[in-house]
């Protein structure tokens, strides 16, 4: 999911009416323009309810609102930036979205005469119009035109125009979701984008240079996507106060390991799917993850889990020793669970290197040991 600011930047580039706004991080100068609205930039809904959106009447209020919102945690996401935007006059708020329906492999177009938080109300849900069609520009545009024609007269032309101009963006950016809520409609029939969600597909970045540039330019705001783009693997910071660092491969098994540790009262510091099969003799990924884990102030144990289907564990063990030598600041005891091809060679390599890594072949035992090592040794 792109941040609202970036979604609006792409929409403005396409010539859509987007209110003036700037992206501000902590320490950046504020625009000397008021009144305005200060909006937390996090990839989650419910920002308003969480106090992440505030209207400021003057520059002092603008400053106070920015200071208050920057650093706020909204649904688990730190607000590292805010968008400061001009206030827009409007007569109506409407709702418009295009969403990929993964189960049906089609696209659902939705519109409502009610925008903002009202669109989710039980009382107005009956007014939510929707149609699901194939992923085809003409089919989606036709569905949107049909739905818009069912809206009240004061809104129909404006929402139809917005939909017509947003559809090409769904394809140009290979979107999974484009949602404009609210869509501001003025008394004269003109319209503007109130809030925008644009969910992109990381797998499409390779052929979408504009999106890739956006992620790279804002690498500090899209840390995980930027890392994946640059290094080709998944890494997520889970808990800055976490006590156990994870160096693991395979998305599902790594996610399950986070669950198993959490269920036993641990606080996993990170998730990663390092993809051992793609190392190709290079320890860079291991070094990056170890460096990241080493910055955790409460890290007291590190758990490695490599279930090697095709990869050779001997090669992985060699890379692991190289990576450990490159990251001496990682001092927490390491427990490694290895299973698969080349286990004996891996054991020999770890032993020859004189490395204190404790190796287990059973995951339950490895988890138990990694947890036991969280306890300070008796002095």
């Amino acid at each position, binding site marked *: 999911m792109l941040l609202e600011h970036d979604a609006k930047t792409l929409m403005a580039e396409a010539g859509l009416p987007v209110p003036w706004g700037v992206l501000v991080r902590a320490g950046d100068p504020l625009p000397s323009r008021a009144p305005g609205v200060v909006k937390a930039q996090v990839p989650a809904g419910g920002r308003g309810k969480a106090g992440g959106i505030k209207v400021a009447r003057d520059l002092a209020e603008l400053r106070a609102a920015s200071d208050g919102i920057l650093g706020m945690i909204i649904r688990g996401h730190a607000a590292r930036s805010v968008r400061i935007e001009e206030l827009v006059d409007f007569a109506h708020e409407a709702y418009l979205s295009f969403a990929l329906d*993964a189960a049906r492999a089609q696209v659902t177009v939705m519109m409502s005469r009610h925008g903002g938080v009202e669109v989710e109300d039980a009382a107005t849900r009956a007014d939510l119009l929707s149609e699901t069609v194939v992923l085809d520009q003409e089919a989606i545009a036709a569905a949107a035109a049909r739905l818009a024609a069912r809206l009240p007269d004061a809104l129909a032309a404006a929402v139809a125009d917005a939909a017509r101009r947003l559809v090409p963006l769904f394809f140009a950016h290979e979107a999974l979701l484009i949602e404009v809520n609210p869509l501001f409609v003025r008394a004269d029939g003109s319209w503007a984008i109130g809030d925008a969600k644009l969910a992109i597909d990381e797998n499409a970045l390779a052929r979408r240079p504009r999106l890739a540039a956006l992620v790279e330019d804002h690498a500090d705001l899209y840390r995980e996507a930027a890392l994946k783009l640059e290094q080709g693997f998944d890494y997520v910071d889970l808990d800055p106060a976490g006590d156990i660092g994870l160096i693991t491969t395979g998305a599902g*098994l790594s996610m399950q390991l986070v669950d198993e540790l959490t269920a036993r009262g641990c606080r996993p510091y990170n998730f990663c799917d390092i993809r051992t099969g793609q190392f190709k003799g290079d320890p860079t990924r291991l070094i990056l993850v170890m460096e990241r884990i080493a910055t955790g102030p409460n890290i007291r144990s590190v758990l490695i889990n490599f279930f090697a289907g095709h990869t050779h564990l001997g090669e992985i063990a060699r890379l692991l020793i190289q990576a450990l030598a490159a990251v001496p600041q990682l001092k927490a005891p390491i427990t490694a669970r290895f299973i698969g091809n080349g286990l004996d060679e891996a054991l020999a390599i770890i032993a020859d290197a004189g490395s204190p890594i404790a190796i287990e072949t059973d995951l339950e035992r490895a988890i138990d040991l990694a947890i036991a090592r969280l306890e300070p040794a008796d002095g």
Partner: protein
Amino acid sequence: MAERLPTADARVIVQGMTGRAGRTHTLSMRAYGTHIVGGVSPRDEDVGGIPVFRDCARAVAATGAVASVAIVPPLAVLPAILEAIAAGIRTVVTITEGMPIHDAVHAKQAVDAAGARWIGASTPGMAIPGRMKLGFLPDVSLAPGRLGVMAKSGTLSYEVCHRLVQRGLGQSQWVGVGGDPVKGTRFADLLPHFASDPDTDALVIVGEIGGNEEEELAAAMTAQRFAKPVFALIAGQAAREGVTMGHAGALIHGTAGTVDSKTQALRGAGAQVFTRIQDLVDAVAG
């Protein structure tokens, strides 16, 4: 009606056979017993004596292949599927990670229109243990037995099946459906196969948060009065909204796609649902 799953003696071609991964997996599939009859590649290099063809049409004409395993880069997956289907291939398994989602939508439309079957994207493949595999499910986790396995996650299913095999429980058939949001074959699509398969006594489902595939499976179990025991593991209990962990499909929006939603649906359909691997293994073995 989608194509039935391929049988153990199906004739198979490999698209992208001469690449590094293509070569490795081709030889390993053949060593496992898969009836590999040809490969497709612009490079005329033989792999272990298996003939190479310039395109799928030529490969199918020469070998009578009915199934294909595509081992090609992410942006080449859609063209590979379209080529295979046009050549008359009935089942395509695509193991590549990172296929763009819009491409997956187009692939799904084309495969459905042809009445063929696509397994993937982003799957370790499928296997009839002891007889054949399409893809790279690890031998250490494969053993002939009577459990039907369906999994979103490769590695998590390796772990689950490895532990079950250590307890003497192997698989009748194992299908990795992949962790992408848009995919060729979903859990519910495979239910009729496992219901009628005389070699399957029970099902093991390796699911995870995100999407509605588990809920859909639960609805199908109820509608089809699926009578065999079902054991499901759902990963992602500790995930938070809006954060993807590796699998693009594993993303929670609001209350949809959560462990609770999936657990309730599956339990309502008579399945036993677990959030810890060992609990599932003990229950299946019990």
